[in-house]
């Protein structure tokens, strides 16, 4: 299985599901009530009609509908960030509606948030997710040119809505891509802590900055994850940051080494904490399904198939979340992992005793 590390994620672990006996058995997912491979979707999760309406309006160029559908600037920070970032994705390929929105409502902080985040997403599309050495000079040039214009849009949004955390979260990606130094990043982070101290969106993104492959180091990344863990109240789903960290940084080496790591204590403890976090989280937490995708992936890797199947059941049908979207073929990775979980779970339950 090949990897397509997305959003600057390079060298994420790649696994093919190990099957005892070496032969992959087909699993009849539909029989267990799961969505068949052909109907898995990568764009939006089912049950998010607001986003569907936004996409439809954007396609028709009706920026007023988009503007009216996204959460207001005083919405809960994660709810706001998640929705606006999803809307920004709609502008990466075509931004005519966004331009009209900015022209028609220049005082709308949300429009500037979407504009800034869309530039960040566009910049990374231009850079591609290749390793730095494989990025062409013209790709670097376009990446830097576009990314360098995003901070101004963040500032504009902040000026219009000073309490909004979302533009600061976007600004962290600018810091990551434009190689801003650690002190400058810490100032941005302080602004975020003042506005949204437990934002999952903010923490997930900050972790990328602290990775050794960007502007951090193994020590700084580990320190950030530990600090997050010690600060986070139960139920805020910040335990997912450690899972992301494990995915991006810890699970390395040969297939055998990774398998050993997955069955080891580090992941096991992280999974226990993430499950407890989920159990205490409010049902309407915006990052609940994202959290479950992480659990589904890692519980399978850890061989905790029964628990994994539960998570798959809860988020089934959508393959556009982390970690699936990092892989070249998100659908296949999701489907294979899900099949492995179901098979493992069946085998365990059919074994006597």
């Amino acid at each position, binding site marked *: 299985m090949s990897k397509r590390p997305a959003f600057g994620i390079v060298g994420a672990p790649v696994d093919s599901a190990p099957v005892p006996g070496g032969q992959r058995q087909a699993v009849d997912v539909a029989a267990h009530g799961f969505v068949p491979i052909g109907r898995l979707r990568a764009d939006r999760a089912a049950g998010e009609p607001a986003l569907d309406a936004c996409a439809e309006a954007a396609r028709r160029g009706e920026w007023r509908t988009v503007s009216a559908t996204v959460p207001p600037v005083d919405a809960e920070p994660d709810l706001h960030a998640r929705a606006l970032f999803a809307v920004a994705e709609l502008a990466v390929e075509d931004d005519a509606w966004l331009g009209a929105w900015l022209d028609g409502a220049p005082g709308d902080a949300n429009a500037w948030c979407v504009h800034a985040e869309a530039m960040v997403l566009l910049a990374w599309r231009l850079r591609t997710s290749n390793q730095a050495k494989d990025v062409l000079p013209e*790709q670097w040039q376009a990446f830097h040119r576009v990314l360098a214009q995003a901070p101004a849009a963040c500032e504009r949004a902040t000026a219009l809505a000073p309490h909004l955390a979302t533009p600061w979260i976007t600004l962290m990606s600018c810091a990551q891509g434009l190689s801003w130094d650690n002190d400058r990043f810490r100032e941005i982070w302080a602004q975020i802590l003042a506005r949204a101290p437990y934002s999952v969106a903010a923490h997930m993104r900050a972790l990328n900055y602290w990775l050794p492959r960007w502007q951090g180091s193994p020590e700084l990344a580990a320190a950030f994850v530990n600090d997050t863990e010690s600060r986070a109240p139960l139920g805020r789903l910040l335990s997912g940051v450690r899972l992301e960290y494990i995915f991006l940084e810890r699970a390395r080496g040969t297939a055998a080494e990774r398998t050993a790591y997955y069955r080891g204590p580090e992941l096991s403890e992280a999974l226990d904490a993430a499950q407890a976090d989920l159990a205490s989280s409010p049902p309407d937490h915006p990052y609940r399904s994202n959290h479950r995708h992480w659990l589904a992936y890692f519980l399978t890797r850890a061989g905790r198939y029964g628990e994994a199947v539960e998570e798959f059941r809860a988020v089934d049908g959508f393959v556009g979340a982390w970690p699936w979207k990092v892989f070249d073929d998100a659908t296949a990775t999701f489907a294979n992992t899900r099949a492995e979980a179901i098979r493992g779970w069946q085998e365990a339950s059919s074994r006597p005793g």
Partner: protein
Amino acid sequence: MRRYAFVAQVLGLLAGFYLICIALVAGLTALTVVGFAEAGVNRLTLFLSLVTLAAAFVVVRGVFVSTHLRVRDIAGVEVTAADQPALWHRVHQLAAQVGTRPPRRIFLVPEVNAAVWENTRLLGLIPGKRQMMVGVPLLMALTPAQLDAVLAHELGHYGNRDTRLGGLVGRTRQGVLGALRAAGSRRKFTLPGAALFVIVFRWYAQIVLRVTQEASRAQEYAADRVAAAISGKVNAIAALGELQVVDTAFGFYLDRYVIRGLDIGLLPPPPEVFGGFIGLLAEPSRQTELDELRREPREEKADPFDSHPPTPERIAALRSLPDDGIPLDQSGLKAVAILANPQDTLAKVATRALRNLSTGKEAVSWDALADATGRRRADERARPLQDVVARLTGQPAHMTTFVKLVEAGRLKEVLDSLPHTVAAQKTNATGRVAREYAKTELGAMLGGWISGDFARVGRARWTHSWADIDGELQMAAEVKASIEEAVDALIAVRPDGSRLRALVLGTVQPLGTVQPLGTVQPRGTVQPLGTVQP
């Protein structure tokens, strides 16, 4: 004993070479004669006689003239002892130290090369006039001690007692390789029967090379030891390492500086041709690049016919010699100081070197050359954009036409019409992503277009630079800044053409091509493509 066996072996190979030559010509002649006698004059026999003639030609090249270097083949200038007393004196000293005859003629050549050769007669039995060529680029780049090492190496090929066999081995190798060369690559036509000759002589060349490779290499090592004994081990090592560096630097210099304006009829004046090389070598940023090359030399392509061992092995062999106490020449002097009247001498070599190139060309200063090539480069850069503008508007591509297109909201169309960038092709980019890639190109094209326009009205010019092959664009700082701002604003994520408009209307007006902006064509009124003007 082994030595005699080897001599016998090489003599056998030489005799074998002559036998093959005789057999080839005699056999073909006999075949032709028989052919004519039996079948008369027809296509086949005529062809056969042509093949026979070709064989005779190849054989003659191999047997008689292959080791001869004719003076008219040397693209250099002969210098007499009266012209260059110091150089002649040094060569005589070196020859005496090596213990061999000095050359009778010395040529200065425009190549990174030095050689001593002898046009022997009667298959190498009668010694001929000994001649030497010294490459001017070596004089400019090497220290006196390094040049001594290079010349001593060349003389060493003749004087070294260990390699008295050299003549015989060289004769054999050059004979068969000369025949192979004569049979093979002809630029304009192929000799009749070439394939046959190539097969025969390549087969034999491989045998000869296998037997003599060791001896040839031993000769090179021996000549290196002579060089080390005379100029000092460290200087001989430095000279060897430096040869590749000088070669690269001089090739770069010729390509990027000397002949850059050839296609628009411009050359630097002859006295500047080698003077410029000194200028390039003295430029700090180039020195950094050359230092990098010295630290990490490029790998040489292994040539199976090369009688020289690879440079790293030669350097390693020199390093293993005992220390001779001669220090590294760090005087900062260059060997060119040995020349009397250097300016005129080097100009003469340059004139001779460019003889075939310079007819109909104008000799201009480096700055004039930089300006002319800078303008051409700017125009070339602008051309794809100008083509698109002309195509989309049906009007001549003036900067004002482009500004009007942008004002009419058609920048997107322009971006979509530009040639696809490599990045866009590689990533199958569409929409915004493809357009952002195109903007990088657009920025460069626009920069070329504007600076070309400014140069035409005398508001910008390029001056020569040894650090940058493109030269330096000379333009008022505030104008330069406003051009950059205008281009940046235009290729921004949300493009803004107003600065460009102000710049074009405000400053390029003297061109007389500015039209009122009132005639902007909205989309849909584009004229038919047939009206695009050249």
